[in-house]
Protein backbone atom coordinates (compact mmCIF):
# COMPACT_ATOMS: atom_id res chain seq x y z
CA UNK A 1 0.00 0.00 0.00
CA UNK A 2 1.17 3.49 -0.85
CA UNK A 3 0.60 4.77 2.68
CA UNK A 4 2.77 1.97 4.17
CA UNK A 5 5.55 2.80 1.77
CA UNK A 6 5.34 6.50 2.62
CA UNK A 7 5.12 5.88 6.38
CA UNK A 8 8.16 3.60 6.18
CA UNK A 9 10.02 6.52 4.62
CA UNK A 10 8.91 8.71 7.53
CA UNK A 11 6.62 10.80 5.36
CA UNK A 12 3.46 12.43 6.66
CA UNK A 13 2.88 14.51 3.59
CA UNK A 14 2.65 14.40 -0.17
CA UNK A 15 3.41 17.19 -2.58
CA UNK A 16 0.87 18.15 -5.21
CA UNK A 17 2.55 19.24 -8.42
CA UNK A 18 0.64 17.46 -11.17
CA UNK A 19 -2.85 16.23 -11.96
CA UNK A 20 -1.84 12.64 -11.19
CA UNK A 21 -1.01 13.67 -7.60
CA UNK A 22 -4.76 14.09 -7.02
CA UNK A 23 -5.08 10.32 -7.54
CA UNK A 24 -2.07 9.74 -5.23
CA UNK A 25 -3.66 11.87 -2.48
CA UNK A 26 -6.90 9.87 -2.76
CA UNK A 27 -4.99 6.55 -2.59
CA UNK A 28 -2.98 7.52 0.51
CA UNK A 29 -6.00 8.75 2.42
CA UNK A 30 -8.12 5.77 1.34
CA UNK A 31 -5.43 3.37 2.67
CA UNK A 32 -4.94 5.34 5.86
CA UNK A 33 -8.61 5.78 6.79
CA UNK A 34 -9.38 2.14 5.96
CA UNK A 35 -6.49 1.00 8.19
CA UNK A 36 -7.63 3.33 10.97
CA UNK A 37 -11.03 1.66 10.98
CA UNK A 38 -13.38 4.17 9.36
CA UNK A 39 -16.51 2.64 7.82
CA UNK A 40 -16.88 2.41 4.03
CA UNK A 41 -19.20 5.41 3.75
CA UNK A 42 -16.95 7.61 5.88
CA UNK A 43 -13.93 6.52 3.82
CA UNK A 44 -15.82 7.58 0.68
CA UNK A 45 -16.77 10.94 2.27
CA UNK A 46 -13.17 11.62 3.33
CA UNK A 47 -11.63 10.53 0.02
CA UNK A 48 -14.17 12.61 -1.94
CA UNK A 49 -13.24 15.66 0.17
CA UNK A 50 -9.55 14.99 -0.45
CA UNK A 51 -10.23 14.84 -4.17
CA UNK A 52 -11.97 18.24 -4.12
CA UNK A 53 -9.29 19.89 -1.97
CA UNK A 54 -6.30 18.41 -3.83
CA UNK A 55 -7.82 19.56 -7.11
CA UNK A 56 -8.35 23.05 -5.68
CA UNK A 57 -4.62 23.19 -4.89
CA UNK A 58 -3.68 21.99 -8.37
CA UNK A 59 -6.17 24.20 -10.26
CA UNK A 60 -5.68 27.43 -8.29
CA UNK A 61 -2.07 27.24 -7.05
CA UNK A 62 -0.49 24.59 -9.36
CA UNK A 63 1.80 23.50 -6.50
CA UNK A 64 1.10 22.62 -2.89
CA UNK A 65 1.18 19.96 -0.25
CA UNK A 66 -1.10 17.58 1.62
CA UNK A 67 -0.22 16.55 5.19
CA UNK A 68 -2.06 14.21 7.52
CA UNK A 69 -2.28 13.21 11.17
CA UNK A 70 -4.22 10.25 12.44
CA UNK A 71 -5.65 10.26 15.94
CA UNK A 72 -6.68 7.30 18.03
CA UNK A 73 -8.09 7.33 21.53
CA UNK A 74 -10.20 4.68 23.32
CA UNK A 75 -13.45 4.33 21.42
CA UNK A 76 -12.63 7.06 18.94
CA UNK A 77 -10.57 7.51 15.78
CA UNK A 78 -9.90 10.63 13.81
CA UNK A 79 -8.04 12.02 10.87
CA UNK A 80 -6.81 15.51 10.19
CA UNK A 81 -5.78 16.46 6.67
CA UNK A 82 -4.14 19.75 5.76
CA UNK A 83 -3.76 21.26 2.30
CA UNK A 84 -1.35 24.13 1.92
CA UNK A 85 -0.33 26.16 -1.08
CA UNK A 86 1.29 29.45 -1.96
CA UNK A 87 -1.27 30.25 -4.62
CA UNK A 88 -3.45 33.33 -5.15
CA UNK A 89 -5.44 32.76 -1.95
CA UNK A 90 -9.20 33.07 -1.51
CA UNK A 91 -10.41 36.66 -1.67
CA UNK A 92 -13.68 36.02 0.19
CA UNK A 93 -13.85 32.78 2.19
CA UNK A 94 -17.55 33.15 3.03
CA UNK A 95 -18.34 33.52 -0.65
CA UNK A 96 -16.18 30.47 -1.47
CA UNK A 97 -18.28 28.43 0.97
CA UNK A 98 -21.53 29.35 -0.78
CA UNK A 99 -22.86 26.56 -3.01
CA UNK A 100 -22.64 27.60 -6.66
CA UNK A 101 -19.84 30.12 -6.29
CA UNK A 102 -16.85 29.36 -8.48
CA UNK A 103 -13.93 31.21 -10.01
CA UNK A 104 -12.87 28.18 -12.04
CA UNK A 105 -15.98 27.59 -14.22
CA UNK A 106 -16.86 24.53 -12.18
CA UNK A 107 -20.11 23.80 -10.35
CA UNK A 108 -18.96 25.50 -7.19
CA UNK A 109 -19.85 22.43 -5.12
CA UNK A 110 -16.30 21.73 -3.92
CA UNK A 111 -15.77 23.68 -0.69
CA UNK A 112 -19.43 23.79 0.43
CA UNK A 113 -19.57 20.04 -0.24
CA UNK A 114 -16.44 19.35 1.80
CA UNK A 115 -17.99 21.27 4.68
CA UNK A 116 -20.94 18.87 4.62
CA UNK A 117 -18.86 15.71 4.25
CA UNK A 118 -16.32 16.43 7.01
CA UNK A 119 -16.81 17.22 10.72
CA UNK A 120 -14.53 20.25 10.80
CA UNK A 121 -13.32 22.63 8.11
CA UNK A 122 -10.95 25.48 8.73
CA UNK A 123 -9.65 27.85 6.06
CA UNK A 124 -6.88 30.36 6.48
CA UNK A 125 -6.08 32.37 3.40
CA UNK A 126 -4.06 35.47 2.71
CA UNK A 127 -4.90 37.18 -0.56
CA UNK A 128 -1.95 36.75 -2.88
CA UNK A 129 0.06 34.65 -0.40
CA UNK A 130 -1.60 31.27 -0.21
CA UNK A 131 -4.22 29.08 1.40
CA UNK A 132 -4.33 26.52 4.18
CA UNK A 133 -7.34 24.24 4.45
CA UNK A 134 -7.66 21.89 7.41
CA UNK A 135 -10.34 19.20 7.62
CA UNK A 136 -11.11 16.66 10.32
CA UNK A 137 -13.32 13.62 10.58
CA UNK A 138 -14.08 11.54 13.68
CA UNK A 139 -15.67 8.15 14.17
CA UNK A 140 -16.61 6.02 17.13
CA UNK A 141 -15.07 2.56 17.22
CA UNK A 142 -15.58 -0.42 19.46
Amino acid sequence: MLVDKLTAQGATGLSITSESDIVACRKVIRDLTTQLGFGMTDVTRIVTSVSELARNVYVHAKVGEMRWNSMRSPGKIGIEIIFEDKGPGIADINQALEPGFSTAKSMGMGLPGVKKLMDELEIVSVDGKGTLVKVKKWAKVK
Partner: protein
Amino acid sequence: MFLKTLSVVKIKNVLLVTVPDDPSDKMVYELQEQVLRSLEKHRSTGVILDISLVNVMDSFFARTIAETTQMVSLMSGMTVVAGMQPNVAITATELGLTLGTAFSALDVDQAFEILNKALS
Protein backbone atom coordinates in the same frame (compact mmCIF):
# COMPACT_ATOMS: atom_id res chain seq x y z
CA MET B 1 -11.21 -6.52 -10.29
CA PHE B 2 -8.95 -3.62 -11.14
CA LEU B 3 -9.16 -1.87 -14.44
CA LYS B 4 -6.51 0.70 -15.27
CA THR B 5 -7.77 2.04 -18.56
CA LEU B 6 -11.06 3.07 -19.99
CA SER B 7 -12.86 0.44 -22.03
CA VAL B 8 -15.29 1.33 -24.81
CA VAL B 9 -17.02 -1.63 -26.47
CA LYS B 10 -19.65 -1.49 -29.21
CA ILE B 11 -22.50 -3.95 -28.71
CA LYS B 12 -25.09 -3.71 -31.49
CA ASN B 13 -26.34 -0.10 -31.34
CA VAL B 14 -25.00 0.56 -27.84
CA LEU B 15 -21.61 1.72 -26.57
CA LEU B 16 -20.63 0.08 -23.30
CA VAL B 17 -18.13 2.26 -21.47
CA THR B 18 -16.42 0.81 -18.38
CA VAL B 19 -14.76 3.33 -16.09
CA PRO B 20 -11.82 2.17 -13.93
CA ASP B 21 -12.04 2.31 -10.12
CA ASP B 22 -10.04 5.49 -9.52
CA PRO B 23 -9.90 7.49 -12.76
CA SER B 24 -7.53 10.45 -13.08
CA ASP B 25 -8.87 13.80 -14.35
CA LYS B 26 -7.09 13.12 -17.64
CA MET B 27 -8.92 9.82 -18.01
CA VAL B 28 -12.26 11.49 -17.25
CA TYR B 29 -11.60 14.04 -20.02
CA GLU B 30 -10.61 11.22 -22.38
CA LEU B 31 -13.83 9.43 -21.54
CA GLN B 32 -15.84 12.36 -22.89
CA GLU B 33 -13.90 12.56 -26.17
CA GLN B 34 -13.71 8.83 -26.69
CA VAL B 35 -17.45 8.36 -26.12
CA LEU B 36 -18.38 11.09 -28.60
CA ARG B 37 -15.93 9.89 -31.26
CA SER B 38 -17.07 6.28 -30.90
CA LEU B 39 -20.69 7.42 -31.06
CA GLU B 40 -20.02 9.12 -34.39
CA LYS B 41 -17.95 6.24 -35.76
CA HIS B 42 -20.36 3.44 -34.85
CA ARG B 43 -23.55 5.50 -35.23
CA SER B 44 -24.65 4.21 -31.85
CA THR B 45 -27.93 5.38 -30.34
CA GLY B 46 -27.28 4.48 -26.72
CA VAL B 47 -24.41 4.81 -24.25
CA ILE B 48 -24.01 2.84 -21.03
CA LEU B 49 -21.52 4.27 -18.55
CA ASP B 50 -20.63 1.42 -16.20
CA ILE B 51 -19.34 3.07 -13.02
CA SER B 52 -19.69 -0.01 -10.80
CA LEU B 53 -15.92 -0.02 -10.14
CA VAL B 54 -15.77 3.70 -9.30
CA ASN B 55 -15.34 4.21 -5.56
CA VAL B 56 -15.14 8.00 -5.46
CA MET B 57 -17.10 10.56 -7.43
CA ASP B 58 -16.27 14.21 -6.91
CA SER B 59 -17.76 17.33 -8.47
CA PHE B 60 -15.40 17.23 -11.45
CA PHE B 61 -16.32 13.65 -12.35
CA ALA B 62 -20.05 14.27 -11.88
CA ARG B 63 -19.91 17.43 -14.00
CA THR B 64 -18.09 15.62 -16.82
CA ILE B 65 -20.67 12.80 -16.78
CA ALA B 66 -23.53 15.32 -16.85
CA GLU B 67 -21.90 17.22 -19.71
CA THR B 68 -21.14 14.05 -21.65
CA THR B 69 -24.79 13.00 -21.31
CA GLN B 70 -25.85 16.35 -22.72
CA MET B 71 -23.39 16.05 -25.63
CA VAL B 72 -24.53 12.49 -26.37
CA SER B 73 -28.09 13.79 -26.36
CA LEU B 74 -27.16 16.54 -28.86
CA MET B 75 -25.81 13.76 -31.07
CA SER B 76 -29.20 12.03 -30.66
CA GLY B 77 -28.04 9.35 -28.25
CA MET B 78 -29.29 8.33 -24.84
CA THR B 79 -27.11 7.75 -21.79
CA VAL B 80 -27.62 5.37 -18.89
CA VAL B 81 -25.28 5.44 -15.89
CA ALA B 82 -25.05 1.94 -14.44
CA GLY B 83 -23.95 0.45 -11.14
CA MET B 84 -23.27 3.35 -8.80
CA GLN B 85 -22.02 2.00 -5.47
CA PRO B 86 -24.16 2.82 -2.39
CA ASN B 87 -21.35 4.76 -0.66
CA VAL B 88 -20.81 6.80 -3.80
CA ALA B 89 -24.54 7.57 -4.05
CA ILE B 90 -24.66 8.68 -0.40
CA THR B 91 -21.60 10.91 -0.72
CA ALA B 92 -22.68 12.39 -4.07
CA THR B 93 -26.06 13.34 -2.64
CA GLU B 94 -24.50 14.93 0.44
CA LEU B 95 -22.18 16.86 -1.86
CA GLY B 96 -25.20 18.03 -3.86
CA LEU B 97 -24.13 16.34 -7.09
CA THR B 98 -26.46 15.12 -9.80
CA LEU B 99 -25.79 13.46 -13.14
CA GLY B 100 -27.94 15.85 -15.16
CA THR B 101 -30.32 14.15 -17.56
CA ALA B 102 -28.62 10.74 -17.53
CA PHE B 103 -30.83 7.74 -16.79
CA SER B 104 -29.63 5.37 -14.12
CA ALA B 105 -29.64 1.61 -13.71
CA LEU B 106 -28.53 -0.76 -10.98
CA ASP B 107 -26.31 -2.69 -13.36
CA VAL B 108 -25.39 -3.09 -17.02
CA ASP B 109 -28.14 -5.70 -17.61
CA GLN B 110 -30.79 -3.27 -16.44
CA ALA B 111 -29.20 -0.48 -18.50
CA PHE B 112 -29.56 -2.60 -21.67
CA GLU B 113 -33.22 -3.21 -20.83
CA ILE B 114 -33.84 0.53 -20.38
CA LEU B 115 -32.15 1.35 -23.69
CA ASN B 116 -33.87 -1.48 -25.59
CA LYS B 117 -37.27 -0.26 -24.41
CA ALA B 118 -36.54 3.39 -25.13
CA LEU B 119 -34.89 2.87 -28.49
CA SER B 120 -37.19 0.22 -29.97
